[in-house]
């Protein structure tokens, strides 16, 4: 079996198909731990994991923290408001100080694209990107792929449509790289203002027509719409966005019978997704969250083995 060679996990763009499959297979073997009465294994006993979050996050941070604890690692959580960043210290200085306390893995969420890359170069500890700006969110895409594989039995040959703010979405980018490497066909859909420049060079199809994105799709991954985008005139109003791109029961009439509805959360009910779809029979939104744990356990485990 393939060995994991990297010190860090910064994104899916730079990974091979085999490396992504290795993470998913490892996650598969970890999933069962969370179903046991005693949800703990000694895999990372004696290791320290720092959760370094510069942006608000409940789901991702909790998921990483539980994943680390179920592997018996010690965890420390630092958020931007409590760290010395507010005192004018640079990211690199803060990281060097944390490293001086001999930590093994740093999980980082940051609003600036490339921040984990800066960190990874500065420290010897492994760095896991928990979302950087508009760049990548690899563990989210991995848990999305894990969920698709679990439900559909495969990824290769499936049609996945990602709907929403593609331009500013790290979830979209990581999904595009991961899914296409594993042989899925990806379509992105949103208003032209939310489709990134140079999209023609990404391995995806583009449509502004939500019906077209829904028809033939095996999976719909619906992205969260950020309210502040409306203030920069990227669309006229949330109401108009919901009318054109919000996925509701009406629009789902065009969908395949066994379509999977996914959303990285947190959901804006009634904006990008209607409550009846979010809570409906095709929704796997909560299963995504469950699988997030297994995927993050796998990633923590692999980076702790990598680069040694």
């Amino acid at each position, binding site marked *: 079996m393939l060995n994991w060679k990297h010190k860090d996990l910064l994104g899916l763009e730079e990974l091979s198909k085999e490396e992504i499959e290795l993470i998913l297979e490892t996650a598969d073997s970890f999933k069962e731990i969370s179903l046991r009465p005693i949800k703990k294994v000694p895999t990372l006993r004696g290791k320290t994991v720092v959760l370094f979050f510069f942006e608000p996050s409940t789901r991702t941070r909790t998921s990483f923290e539980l994943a680390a604890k179920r592997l018996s690692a010690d965890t420390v959580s630092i958020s931007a408001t409590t760290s010395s960043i507010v005192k004018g210290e640079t990211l690199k200085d803060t990281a060097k100080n944390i490293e001086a306390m001999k930590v093994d893995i740093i999980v980082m969420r940051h609003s600036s*694209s490339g921040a984990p890359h800066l960190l990874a170069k500065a420290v010897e500890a492994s760095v896991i990107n928990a979302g*950087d700006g508009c*760049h990548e969110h690899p563990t989210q895409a991995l848990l999305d792929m894990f969920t698709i594989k679990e439900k559909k039995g495969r990824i290769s040959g499936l049609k996945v449509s990602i709907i929403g703010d593609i331009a500013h979405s790290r979830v979209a980018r990581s999904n595009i790289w991961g899914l296409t490497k594993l042989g899925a066909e990806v379509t992105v859909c949103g208003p032209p203002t939310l489709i990134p420049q140079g999209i023609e060079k990404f391995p995806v199809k583009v449509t502004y027509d939500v019906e077209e994105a829904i028809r033939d799709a095996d999976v719909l991954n619906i992205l969260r719409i950020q309210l502040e985008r409306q203030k920069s005139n990227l669309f006229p109003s949330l109401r108009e966005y919901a009318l054109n791109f919000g996925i509701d029961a009406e629009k789902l009439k065009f969908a395949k019978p066994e379509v999977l509805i996914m959303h990285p959360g947190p959901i804006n009910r009634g904006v990008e997704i209607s409550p009846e779809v979010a809570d409906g029979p095709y929704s796997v939104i909560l299963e995504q969250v469950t699988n997030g744990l297994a995927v993050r356990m796998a990633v923590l485990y692999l980076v702790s083995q990598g680069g040694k």
Partner: protein
Amino acid sequence: MSILIKGGYIVDPENKLEGVYDILIDDGEIKKIEKDIDSEKCELIDGKGKYIFPGLVDMHCHLREPGREDEETLLSGSLSGIKGGFTTLCCMPNTKPPIDNQGIVEYIYNENKKIGLMDIFPVGAITKNLEGKELTEIGELKKAGVVAISDDGNCVMDSEVMRRAMEYSKMFDLLVISHCEDKNLSRGGLMNEGYLSSLLGLKGIPRQAEIVMVARDIELAKLTEAKLHIAHVSTKETVELIRQAKKRGIKVTAETCPHYFSLTEERILGYNTNCKVNPPLRTPEDIEAIKEGLRDGTIDVIATDHAPHADFEKDVEFEQASFGMIGLETALGIALKELIKTKIISLSQLVEKMSLNPAKILGLDKGSINIGKPADLIIVDLDKSWEVKREKIVSKSKNTPFLNWTLPGVIEYVFAKGKLVLNKN
């Protein structure tokens, strides 16, 4: 004391002089430029196999004094310039406080007089505090000694303000230098917009942010008949707009910088903040068009846009990093590598663009080697090359994307204002 430069190959486009000559310098003044000058009683510099250019003139650099003396000073900037073959520098007004009043202009002249290595000419602000709203006292700035006006990094967004600045400065025959950037289009942008910015998740600056402002300023130059100079051309469309404007007889000149004909946006991959610059690095087609613009004369000047930044402003998240790179020490080397070794322009054209043209555009008595004038020239060995090393950088700041590049052309001697200020020995 007399110095004789023996057997060097002079390139002086102003005097249409190109060939092997001896130069006799007495008491800092050029006395003779002839073949085979008698070398008795002279200190001898062997120019054999070397090239002699007029001292380089940089019409666009940032020397950070006053305000950010930790990044650069007039002294360290002078030394950095000398290392790169520059004997005249024009410093941009975005100092702290900005060069928007007579007092700061006088401060720069006075401080530089104490240093005395070379001429440093300040560029004054177009508007007070570079805010783009109210004109500075342009007449007084001119009297105090500014050689041009510019709001530099802050493009004057209000077209009416820009029109009036150009119209008003005409009576002083003062050059208006425009940093062309539509700040609404570029807001929040970090690099050239396109596939790579989308790949890296960095907000893009569309090339149109530059193009639309160049088009506007060309039309304002037509309207006002003022002297307009377009700073740091970075796109192929800009080159074409300037080419057409010159054909239409509009008084416009233009500069580009070494990084716009040597580096593409791909250099940013890996979030390399030393390649974060404004305007941003573009694409291979832009580089080709800029080289063609240099070749056919559309682009008159190669300036450095030397922008020193402290490590702590560059060694941060890409989004937080300052824009800009240093360039005084590498400009000639990059130009030799990208334009001369590749035979895109001649040495004579290179000297025009790095010395004579900026001097002419600014109305400075520089850019040529003349009998009766103080020696202001450099002696370069074009057969030798050197490696850009961090520890060898003279500038106070080290933010260059050219680290570890091997560049042709070792500058062996620099005469500035009659004084030998750099000697390889």
